[in-house]
Each structure stands twice: as C-alpha cells, then as structure tokens.
C-alpha cells in the first residue's frame, strides 16, 4: 500500500544521502553521520510511539546501553570483531528492553510513560554513579571494531567515509526492515493495538506479547544506534542515557510526524539541523550559547502550526489550497497506509 509519492521520497532521500559525501567536507560528513544515527534511533522509537501507541520516555537508556556495551566489550588495545560486537551490543539493549518492557507494559498511559522513565533513570544512575562505566567522565573506545576475513579487512570503520557508508547501510536496513514489518500481520496487529486495544482483545489477540515483542525489537534498534554512536565518537558518557536525550528523540518523531517512518527520518534531520543552526555563532554570535531557547521556541511553534508534523505539510498545503475538502481529509489522515 505504498503510494508512489512516499516511495519516491524515500528513494530520493537515500540516494541523496549516498551522494552527499562526494560533495561535502569533513564537517558535513560528520554531521550527517550523526544525524543518520539519530534517524535510526528515532525509527526505533517510532515503532513504539507512532505504530503501537506506546509512549516510551526512557528510550535513551537503550541507546546508551548499546553504546556502553560497545566500549565495555571491546578489548582494551585491540580491535573487536564487528561480526560479534555489533550483535552483542544489539542483544544487550534488547535484553534490557525485554526486562523494561515486561514490567512497564503492565501499566498504561501516563503510568507507562513514568515507569519507562524510571527504568531509564535506573540505568542512568548505575552508569553515572558506579565505576563500571567510568562514572561521569565516561570511557574511551581505544580501537574501533573491524570486520576481517582471512587477514584482510573487509569493513574498517576508522575513516569517516567508510563509517558514513556503514551507517547509511544500517539506516537503509532498519528502514527497510520496519517498512516490511509494518505491512506484515505483526505490524497490522500493532497498528490495531494503537487504534483500539479493547477491540484487539475482544477479537482474540493477546496484546501483551505483541507489545513486548515491539518493545524488544525497538530496544534492539536503539542499541544499534548506540553502537554506531560509540564507534563514531570513540567515547561514551552517561548523558547518552539521560532523560534529556529520551525527550529529544521523542521531539524528533513528533516534529517529523507520528505514524510515518518517513517522519522519524525527517524529524531527526530537522531536529539536528535546527540544533546546529541555533548553536551557530556565525549566525547568532554570543547569543548562540542560549541555543536551547531558540530551539524550544521553534519546536513549540512547529507543533502548534503543524499538528501532523513535517510529513503532513504537503497535505496541509493542499487542503489550504483546495479548502473545502478539509473535513474529509482530516479524518482520513490517520489512515492505515504508511511508509
């Protein structure tokens, strides 16, 4: 049920991202790598919030666990094998998600939000206040993982270009996987849970295992994003698990437009670019240190003016131009066709 416009947008986005390093400088490549990692993280949360209707306010913990696992599992002075390190980090985050989900999914609504926050804070303080993760200073990843086959390096993540390519492939895989998942029976059941959980149970779906599976898959993807982040910067710190970051990723998907995978992609770019813009001293001079103010006001304004997020802008423009069809569209806008 993918419409041509959506498919075109996604293909164009990935083609542009693939071409970008050939025209951009080091700063740009570094920034877009970071944004693509954010996009993977945002996609993981979109599966929970936008698809299943579960507002998780502790997603940074899963990202952070993926990131810390990357550093903690890597040998001190040797490159870890990518083939085992990446799955291990993903599994670590998925395991914590399974634990977190198993308990928090017994609650609903605002209680769910608060319980997920509590689980995230728990992980945050374990990392922040104990020596296992180097405390508040964080820890460094001395050697980046590589994938070696028979002595020759197949994938090295040391230079920015190859790491960019690797991140691009991961983003593509995650996007493709989620797009498949959403149109499958599993995905439709998640959409049903969001639309009307009571009806799902009345027709014979035990919704708890579905939600727990979604939570765990989401955690695994967040862990992947954390892994990439740790490898990119070569350093992790407790702020990766903080509730500020959980909030930021929620804002990304809201900004982009809930209920659409594209929304997570667009939202991650919009959020990160706005942040760069308001932090830029070239634009704001000394005022740039108050960047949070500008960012916050922009986000408030866009949520007020674009209730369906950036994804909904074309529809909003069309409605403005065509006027009277508004009633019809506003009820169909949450239709089950999604990419």
């Amino acid at each position: 049920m993918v419409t041509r416009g959506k498919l075109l947008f996604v293909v164009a986005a990935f083609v542009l991202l693939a071409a970008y390093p050939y025209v951009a400088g080091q700063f740009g490549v570094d920034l877009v790598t970071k944004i693509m990692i954010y996009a993977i993280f945002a996609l993981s949360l979109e599966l929970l919030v936008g698809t299943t209707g579960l507002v998780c306010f502790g997603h940074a913990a899963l990202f952070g666990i993926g990131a810390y696992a990357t550093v903690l599992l890597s040998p001190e002075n040797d490159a870890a094998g990518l083939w085992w390190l990446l799955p291990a980090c993903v599994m670590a985050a998925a395991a914590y998600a399974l634990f977190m989900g198993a308990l928090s999914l017994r609650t609903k609504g605002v209680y769910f939000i608060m319980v997920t926050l509590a689980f995230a804070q728990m992980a945050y303080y374990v990392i922040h206040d104990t020596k296992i993760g180097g405390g508040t200073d964080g820890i460094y990843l001395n050697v980046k993982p590589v994938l070696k086959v028979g002595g020759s390096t197949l994938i090295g993540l040391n230079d920015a270009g190859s790491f960019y390519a690797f991140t691009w492939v991961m983003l593509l895989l995650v996007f493709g996987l989620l797009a498949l998942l959403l149109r499958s029976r599993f995905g439709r059941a998640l959409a049903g849970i969001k639309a009307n959980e009571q009806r799902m149970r009345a027709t014979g779906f035990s919704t708890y295992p579905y939600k727990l599976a979604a939570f765990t898959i989401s955690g695994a993807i967040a862990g992947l994003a954390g892994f990439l982040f740790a490898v990119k910067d070569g350093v992790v710190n407790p702020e990766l698990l903080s509730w500020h970051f959980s909030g930021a990723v929620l804002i990304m998907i809201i900004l982009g437009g809930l209920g659409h995978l594209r929304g997570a992609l667009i939202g991650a770019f919009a959020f990160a670019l706005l942040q760069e813009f308001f932090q830029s001293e070239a634009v704001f001079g000394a005022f740039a240190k108050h960047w949070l103010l500008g960012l916050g006001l922009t986000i408030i304004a866009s949520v007020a003016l674009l209730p369906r997020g950036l994804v909904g802008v074309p529809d909003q423009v069309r409605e403005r131009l065509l006027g009277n069809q508004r009633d019809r569209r506003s009820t169909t806008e949450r239709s089950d066709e999604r990419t």
Partner: protein
Amino acid sequence: MSAPDVLLRGREITRRWGGLLAVDRVSIELERGSVHAVIGTNGAGKSTLINILSGEIAPSAGRVELLGHDVTAWPQPRRARAGLGRSYQRSTIYPSFSVFENCRLAAQARNQKPWLWWQSAQRCEASTTAARAAAHRAGLDELLERPAGLLSHGQKRQLEIAMCLAIAPEVLLLDEPLAGMGAEETDRMLALLAELKASHAILLVEHDMDAVFRIADRITVMVNGAVIASDTPQAVRLSPAVQAAYLGGH
C-alpha cells in the same frame, strides 16, 4: 428437534463493586439457534454480566462455561479465539482503518502468525476471504474502502457485527446493537440477527422493547443485579413481577 445445544453457560455469576452488588447470582444459558435477550433498567447489571461472560471482568463468584469448557479463568482473548464474539455499547472499531481492514484485522486473529514478518498482511488469503465474507453478511459490500470513522452510526454497528463474524464465533454477545438506529436500520439488523441465530447462540442486551419482543426466543429480566424473570417473551410480558418492576404496568 435435538436436545438444546448450550454453547455458553453462566452459573450463579456474582460481581461486587465494594459494597454494591452489581450482578447477583445470575445463571444464564445461551443455546444455538436462539436469541436470548437480557433487559432491565440502566444499572441493572446487564453490561457487567456481558463483561463477565466475555472475560473483561472477573466474577466475584460463579463460573462461566464456553462450549463445555470451564473458562472462568481464561482471559478475554483466549475466549474470543475459542469462539466468543462480542460487540460493545459504544462502537468499538478501528476508526482510522478502512472497513475492509477492520474486518481483515479481526479475521487475522484466527490466523495470527506474527513471525511471518516479511509477508504482507494483505497476502493472508484466509483472513482476506473471511473479511470479505463477514462484510458481505453484514451488508457492507459497498463500503469496503471507506475509512470506518466516516461511517454513519448504524453502519458502524453493522461493522462491529461484521468484525465479530470475521472471527467465526459460535456465541455472539451483543450489547445494545440497535441503540441510536433508525427504523430501517433496525429492521435490517433484526433480519441479520434472525439469519445468524440458526448457527449461533446470541445474547442480546437491548433497550428497544419492540425489537426485543420481535426477535427474542427467551428473555431474562434483571433488576438491581438479580434475575426476576427468565422465560419466553409471552410469559415475560404477562409476568406481574416484570410488569411491576420494569414495564411499568403497560
């Protein structure tokens, strides 16, 4: 005629909310081939009874048997999979999905297979066929592509019946399916129920007394959580206790 085929049985069902006795030792039997109506004033405990039978609320005492199994401890989804469909007093549908997708997702419950993550849900032959058949039976053929939220009230009630039928239930618990319907829609719904009762056991909670007396084979009257009469419509109509308590002497 063969012996009555009791598909759902509630025995001495009791539910207390604190000091309030919402349902007081109610026993009820639903047979295949008959419509069993439950009537009573607001607050008589009819909806609580339905919720207990369908598994949304646990009874304080008593037991529920579905197709010969004791299902008192079964959660609602398990009862639904075993053949219990229900509709709600307020339309409980997926407003953002198309009519067809509402039915298809309901039918998917019979064929869940969530591990087939690479296969499109639309490719599940069993559920698309069941969905079409259920929509056809409920008279929604023309509206398959319409978003369910845009249906008229009566059509939403029809859709809810279709979603019940899509899971191929043996027992239907219908909570005020006629509420808010016009005369024509009521006629159509009653015709559908008359058609369905041959192969299903139907429990009907309804306020429209004309409709109840037209369709019901058996009527149970509840007052303050307790059953004061349970008999054929004719006998219930003539019962002095019912006339005093409910029909107001008409």
